[in-house]
């Protein structure tokens, strides 16, 4: 036997002890991991059909505001008002969420000319002004100008989807949906704002630009 042989064997033995993976892959599921136990192959289990939503007392109103907040419905009609006060914080959050989830199709300005529309997706109606005739989906012509649509209508569209638009209920939380609607209202307003309605600071800015 060569003298280096036992040395090599010893080295290899020391090195190979680190190769067991038991602690790296522990017998539990990570989120979204595949499962051999459940027949559908998913370790994430679906919510059972009979489960009833129970309002979170910290964030969700109960009682008479429940339908208003969670469904956008007041007395069986689309809500005309927001279920909570809208302030600057809500608008900023609304703008941020709008830019994540809505701009791909509706565009930064809400004109319905987002990047995905430019790539061939059905153009959504602009949030303001007469909608261009599409002749495609008759369901989409409830409101000739979306400025007339009550906030509850937007809530229903985000929650359930509309025409080519899929539901965003699983992507945008309820409060964020209202924040986005508030921001859409701001977009609508901004397109028709007159100079006299602007704060002095903005008017100064504007006069510099127009000059």
């Amino acid at each position, binding site marked *: 036997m060569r*003298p280096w042989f036992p040395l090599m064997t010893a080295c290899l033995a020391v090195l190979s002890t680190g190769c067991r993976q038991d602690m790296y892959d522990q017998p539990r599921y990570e989120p979204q991991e595949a499962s051999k136990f459940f027949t559908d192959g998913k370790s994430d289990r679906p919510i059972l059909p009979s489960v009833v939503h129970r309002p979170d007392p910290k964030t969700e109103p109960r009682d008479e505001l429940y339908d208003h907040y969670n469904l956008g419905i007041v007395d069986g009609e689309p809500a005309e008002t927001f279920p909570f006060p809208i302030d600057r914080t809500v608008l900023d959050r609304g703008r941020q969420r709008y830019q994540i989830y809505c701009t*791909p199709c509706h565009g930064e300005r809400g004109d319905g000319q987002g990047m995905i529309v430019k790539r061939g997706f059905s153009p959504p109606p602009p949030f303001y002004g007469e909608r261009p005739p599409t002749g495609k989906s008759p369901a989409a012509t409830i409101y000739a100008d979306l400025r007339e649509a009550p906030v509850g209508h937007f809530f229903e569209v985000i929650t359930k989807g509309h025409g080519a638009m899929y539901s965003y209920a699983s992507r945008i939380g309820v409060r964020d949906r209202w924040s986005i609607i508030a921001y859409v209202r701001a977009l609508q307003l901004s397109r028709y704002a007159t100079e006299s309605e602007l704060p002095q600071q903005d008017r100064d800015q504007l006069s510099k630009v127009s000059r």
Partner: protein
Amino acid sequence: MPQIFHPSLNTLSRLSIFGGAFAALGLLAISYMLVGSPYQTQVGIIHDQPVQFSHEHHVGGLGIDCRYCHTSVEISAVSGVPPTYTCMSCHSQIWSESPMLQPVRDSLKNDTPIAWAKVHDLPDFVYFHHGIHIQKGIGCVSCHGRIDQMPLTFKDKPLTMEWCLECHRHPEKYIRPYEEIFNMEWKPPGGDQLTLGRKLIEDNHIPVDRLTNCSVCHR
């Protein structure tokens, strides 16, 4: 009595003693390099995926925000691989005939998940939380690299403990303002990362002395 050992064995024995020592050191060096190499860390390795999804096209080309698909990344431990429904929000009309997207359409139609190969797989004894890193100011790009330039997704950083600790010891070198978390191209204003980083540590109440405690990542 004849000689048992041939004189040449004098040389051989010296060689084997020195050679053995070098071989042992060499083996250790090789194994150390191997542990840090892409063979072990999977850095830059592209896995076979059921669909050839391109972050370069969706993020870099179309400008879709990370959170459009990875909806839970700001509040949850996991960023969340999107459900097929999210893909089909656009692909119901765009590339709706493409054979490349057949697995996506099948997935929605049959309500079966797409079995993506996990690219960033931490050991089960590491309890990483995406949400806290984002809330405290770590940008996506710090750990995931220029994902907006990856036609096929690969791991850009080794995600070894040594690598994690480098930032947990000196977060001021990496931390950024909340508005720039999802910006792939952000650079510190004036190139002065350290001043900004120290200020953000103050503002975000980051207990740097406790970031290297074992229980921060292990339980």
